[in-house]
């Protein structure tokens, strides 16, 4: 077993760290407070290749492995998960889905601009009444012969307004239940699409979350990914990989808060000494460090399995579940170590705590991850 990173993986980690700590940090509080979309950072990260880092270079991607992706996601998420979620959705849901299941024509037409970051993608699965229960899709894609007619509403869509390319999951054959679901590549500017107002969220406030309404939107038949009825399987397979991204994001939120807590506890004095010298604080730091190391190992194992072409759904569910849970715990403790300063925006940890909460909810709640994990256990043993 080898725990060493390659020179290239370390270089990617450093590049992400340099960008996050030098540029991303600058306006993060203002962007969060005022829900400002991080357009300039998305552009800069696209130019550096982060938005399509997992895509094969022949489709204009970075050609990096999933381990590098975890390292980069952690570094960006230490500073701003509103940005890393854009990176995650684009890389591990939209680009991954088209690259692995799309036709050559679809890759040429849709994947390349997404991999270059010229267009950003959105993954439209959740609905007002279908979140965790993804089989209950009410959005319909009616087969009209040479095209589909899309009707319905999608909720909580990251990049909902800024995306140029949507991957829409919709029901074509209700009688077949989840086996009648399709996935369609949809131009965001197609006639009949209405984007709802920006969601005023608790955390990740500068990411662009909207509901999206489809009213008789015509989608060419050639924009369907896979065979008729492949949509649900597509969503599940793609979300397996997406979980690694969000697990790495949760890991970054935790390690970002931890690094700030360590620094603060070595500077802040109480009762005549730095608070790190008080066992109550030092033990908190020890607990946080162990949890973060566990989460990191789970993320890297899931990434390694994916890179090796081995099944990784179980590992990615474990990584996502555990990293999200400890992100909440670690950020809460980081706020506690900071005391009153932790409760104000200037010290960043309250924002990280707000961001952590979302990682327990989106791309499969912690409870859904436990379903995935427990089903696998019960099938195997």
């Amino acid at each position, binding site marked *: 077993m080898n725990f060493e990173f390659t020179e290239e993986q370390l*270089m990617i980690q450093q*590049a992400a760290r340099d960008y996050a700590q030098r540029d991303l940090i600058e306006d993060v509080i203002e962007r969060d407070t005022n829900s400002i979309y991080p357009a300039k950072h998305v552009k800069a990260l696209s130019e*550096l*290749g982060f938005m399509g880092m997992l895509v094969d*270079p022949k489709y204009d991607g970075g050609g990096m492995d999933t381990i590098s992706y975890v390292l980069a996601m952690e570094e960006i998420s230490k500073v701003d998960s509103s940005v890393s979620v854009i990176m995650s959705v684009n890389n591990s849901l939209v680009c991954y889905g088209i690259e692995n299941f799309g036709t050559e024509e679809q890759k040429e037409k849709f994947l390349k601009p997404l991999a270059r970051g010229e267009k950003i993608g959105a993954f439209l699965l959740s609905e007002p009444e279908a979140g965790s229960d993804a089989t209950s899709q009410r959005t319909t894609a009616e087969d009209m012969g040479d095209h589909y007619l899309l009707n319905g509403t999608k909720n909580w869509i990251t990049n909902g307004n800024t995306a140029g390319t949507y991957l829409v999951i919709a029901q074509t054959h209700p009688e077949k239940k989840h086996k009648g679901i399709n996935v369609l590549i949809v131009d965001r500017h197609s006639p009949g699409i209405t984007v709802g107002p920006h969601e005023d969220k608790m955390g990740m406030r500068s990411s662009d979350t909207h509901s999206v309404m489809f009213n008789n939107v015509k989608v060419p038949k050639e924009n369907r990914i896979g065979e008729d009825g492949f949509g649900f399987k597509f969503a599940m397979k793609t979300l397996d990989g997406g979980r690694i991204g969000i697990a790495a994001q949760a890991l970054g939120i935790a390690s970002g808060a931890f690094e700030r807590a360590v620094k603060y506890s070595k500077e802040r004095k109480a009762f005549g000494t730095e608070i790190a010298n008080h066992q109550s604080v030092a033990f908190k730091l020890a607990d946080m460090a162990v949890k973060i190391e566990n989460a990191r190992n789970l993320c890297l194992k899931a990434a390694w399995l994916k890179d090796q072409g081995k099944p990784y759904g179980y590992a990615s569910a474990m990584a996502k579940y555990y990293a999200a849970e400890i992100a909440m715990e670690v950020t809460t403790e980081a706020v506690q170590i900071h005391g009153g300063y932790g409760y104000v925006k200037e010290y960043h940890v309250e924002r990280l705590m707000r961001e952590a909460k979302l990682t327990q909810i989106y791309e499969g709640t912690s409870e859904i991850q436990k379903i995935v994990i427990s089903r696998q256990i019960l099938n195997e043993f």
Partner: protein
Amino acid sequence: MNILVCISNVPDTTTRIKYTTDQKEVDYSGVQWIINPWDELALTRAIELKEANPALIQKITAITVGKADAEPTLRKALACGADDAIRVDASGVDSFYTASQLTNAIKDESFDLILCGIESSDFNGAAVGGMLAELLDWPSVSAVSSVNIENESVKVTREIDGGKQLMETGTPSVLIVQKGIALNPRIPSMRGIMTARTKQLKVVPAVEAAAQSHILTFAAPPQKSACKIIDAENLDELARLLHTEARVI
């Protein structure tokens, strides 16, 4: 035109420097290595110049004097945009030794411009650039804060006391650059990182060169004393402490 950028492989600037127990050497265990920040800015400017004028500038070469463990630093230079790299297989001893190794390594190459950071962030010698120019018998300009190339003319700005000095030089020459030469160091792109592995990194053996100095001992700076916060209203107390404790007034 070919540009050479001299790269020093230095400990990350946030490293807590430790010494061996006999205080004769730096303890490098656990140290993260980076491109010396001034050299990184020099490299960034060289890349910017090549991007702005690819017809004029054909090649950027990064060079360092160091053992094999310095190669990740050179690979980063390649990932940032250097076209090839040279490593002189030697540990730095002093500035003259380093300058001698650099001079020998490039004697058969054809460079028109050499950029060196003004100093390295570890030993702060601020001598290699000047020595290199002298050993090559090339003109050099120190403390350069901006550089532009127009045809064969090299226009530079130097920061001087109370203002700026604009100068023109030709090629070949050595520019010893300082902060301001580029706004921010270049962050390597995915494409750059991927192509770095295919770029040439030539290893050149060290030559005999006599060091002109040797280190007797190292000493850590005294620990900073605790910070005292004086109430904004209590100016008398502030004045008293500055006078009796800090002894600065």
